[in-house]
């Protein structure tokens, strides 16, 4: 195993090694931006094409859970930054604590995401044969766990949507496109969170052995960069998926 600050054979100095690793991580993040970029482009074009169906789809997401996850994730970025700070200032025990907190918050995020997915599944909002955007509006409010007011709003919104989109079939198709994007984008983001959680676990095991200090902390810094990146993706996803059109709900 690579020990603290050990110099790999291909490098001449530790500085060169650190610079190389950091540049590599930044370039990797550039490729990630392009990767998500394709999805954001697909989203933008379709949102522009079908504002009504996308608005209705967005209003069906759970604002509380989405907002909670946003707070959780921003908090995790803070603890991540604190673990980098702890490593750079040589506070070894704090590194482990902050990394563990980050992992905990990341897990909370993923847990909440599972609850949300389950809810969408129950509401027939997963793309496929059983997809039905009108399911909650056609059934009693209790089936989807809505209050009477929410239920009434949804029925009204769906009725307007059917009119604007030119029929229930069209609305259903375009709403399905919205939820394809919702699951595509948040699913890919969640996948990155899971990878990040694995990396954090690795860091925690290393930190417990006291590997990271003021002279050697490149892995903490670089995995931190990755974590912040995944965080920023969510910062874009949240308003795009949850918030647009919310005022019309």
């Amino acid at each position, binding site marked *: 195993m690579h020990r603290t600050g050990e110099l790999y*054979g*291909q490098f*001449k100095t530790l500085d*060169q090694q650190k*610079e*190389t690793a950091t*540049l*590599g991580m930044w*370039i*990797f993040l*550039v*490729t*990630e*931006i*392009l*990767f*998500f*970029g*394709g*999805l954001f*482009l*697909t989203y933008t*074009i*379709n949102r522009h*094409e*079908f504002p009504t*169906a996308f608005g209705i789809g967005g209003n069906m997401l759970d604002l509380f859970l989405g907002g909670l996850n946003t707070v959780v994730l921003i908090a995790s970025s803070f603890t991540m930054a604190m673990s980098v700070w702890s490593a750079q200032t040589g506070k070894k025990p704090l590194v482990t604590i902050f990394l563990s907190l980050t992992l905990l918050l990341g897990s909370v995020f993923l847990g909440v995401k599972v609850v949300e997915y389950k809810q969408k599944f129950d509401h027939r909002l997963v*793309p*496929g*044969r059983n997809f039905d955007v009108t399911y909650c509006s056609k059934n009693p409010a209790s089936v989807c766990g809505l209050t009477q007011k929410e239920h009434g709003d949804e029925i009204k919104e769906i009725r307007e949507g059917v009119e604007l989109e030119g029929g229930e079939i*069209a609305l259903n*198709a*375009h709403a*399905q*496109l919205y939820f*394809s*994007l919702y*699951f*595509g984008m948040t699913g890919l983001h969640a996948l990155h969170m899971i990878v990040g959680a694995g990396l954090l676990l690795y860091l925690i095991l290393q930190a417990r052995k006291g590997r990271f200090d003021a002279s050697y902390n490149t892995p903490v810094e670089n995995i931190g960069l990755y974590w912040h990146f995944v965080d920023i993706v969510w910062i874009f996803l949240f308003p795009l998926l949850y918030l647009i059109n919310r005022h019309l709900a």
Partner: protein
Amino acid sequence: MSGTKTAGSAEFRLPREHYLNAKYGMRSWLLTTDHKRIALLYLASVTFFFFVGGIFATLIRIHLLTPEGLVVTPETYNKLFTMHGVAMIFFFLIPSIPAVLGNFLIPIMIGAKDLAFPKINLLSWYIYLVGGCFVLYSFATGGLDTGWTFYTPLSSIYSNSAVTPAVLGVFINGFSSILTGLNFLVTVHTMRAPGMTWFRLPLFVWAHYATSLIMILGTPVIAITLLLAGLERMFHFGFFNPTYGGDPILFQHLFWFYSHPAVYIMILPAMGVVSEIIPTFVRKPIFGYSFIAASSIGIAVIGFIVWAHHMFVTGEATYAAIAFSFLSYLVAVPSAVKVFNWTATLYKGSVSYDTPLLYALGFIGLFTIGGLTGLFLACLGLDIHLHDTYFVIAHFHYIMVGGAVMGYVGGLHFWWPKITGRLYPEFLARASAIILFIGFNLTFFPQFILGGLGMPRRYHNYPPEFQVLNVMSTAGASVLAIGYLLPMFYLTWSMRYGKIAGPNPWPATGLEWKTASPPLTENFLETPAVDWEPYDFVHRPDLGLSGAKAPGKLAPAHGDD
């Protein structure tokens, strides 16, 4: 090192220890992190896929001997050209020069011990293999018939062939390409030896730097595009499906956003190879070093904003089409800069027609034809006539086979003494270079005429009046096959029986020629310091060019160009 001895003289011995004999056994190869060994792993695997793709090409050409088609059913024919494209583009052409020659040479050329991330380098080879296995699985379970472009909704809904594993294979393989590009970029930035300034980098490295930019900026986009198409096929997500309001044209935009620059992933490294070969065999610094370097970057940048010229007939907006047409013309400028500079380098040089130079000259000619016919296709009005005809097939084969593969085979010959420590038989090699050139032109030139006459691509049959040209093309393909098989045999033969090459048999000026052939595992005994300009034959007494072989009074590599 004694440079005065003639190439291949009996006085040269192989170094006692080098990267090939440093360790033995399967493990030492499969778990190696040595960039030179990984390059050889890639060499074996891309050669394998070249022959897989070659078999499909052979069947296509045999089938097209008669107007009604000779051997396969129409459905099988669709699969043949699809699998030919998938194997050749994603698993041979894109990794060929970068992953084999680039991997082997970039660290040595800049005076480093290895790439920046040796383990990631090995990982990228394994990712390539996994991707390759998925694609082979698709081929073995019936193949796919979507065309290598995987256009939706055929690929995502209607095709009944093994699309999913092939798309997955190409998706996975993309990460191999991304990691290779990332590794090269970081290596060029942080691993250069003292004195190896940016404008002393060999042009081969510049070309790979530009290629790597495309790899890291383009490949993620094709990855997400194929992922979305795959999700659509597997889970009925509707991104590109008109039933749900999705847009199939969006797939084409995203696809070509990568796949057009991907053409430059194939051609730029070949241009790098040519830029190394030409000065060596004319004993003259390359003309316009900085222009060639900058034009590599120029091609990479402009290459990203021309993609929609593949879609002139999809009904895209007229003004968008005009812009893309103009930008496509623009990319000809840096390409022409290179061709003129290579030609100017040849002018008044002392030219020796050794095998690598034959390939380089072949490259210049074929690339020029391929490039100029590209301008026909970039022309809005003309493209409507030529779109989806054999003219397009001929055009991109002139670029990809006449350009990229010529560059690759030429580069293999040029650096073969460095890779193996031995020389190949020169006469056979020259003969096969000429056979390749003749076979290539015989195969593909008739296709320009066929396309102009209106023969559409991707059809399993054709009107009888096109038969003569099709038979010519198939005859040419047989000659071409000999041109590919010959090097395969004599290069393999030379690994054991070739004359010992010595460190610098040509002689050439790059850093890679200052170490032993084959190099040590660490490339150099001690980190070299560079205090000469690139391609300078005059101020390099160590090259042993004296008396009759001395270069004339020549300008320095750059500064006055």
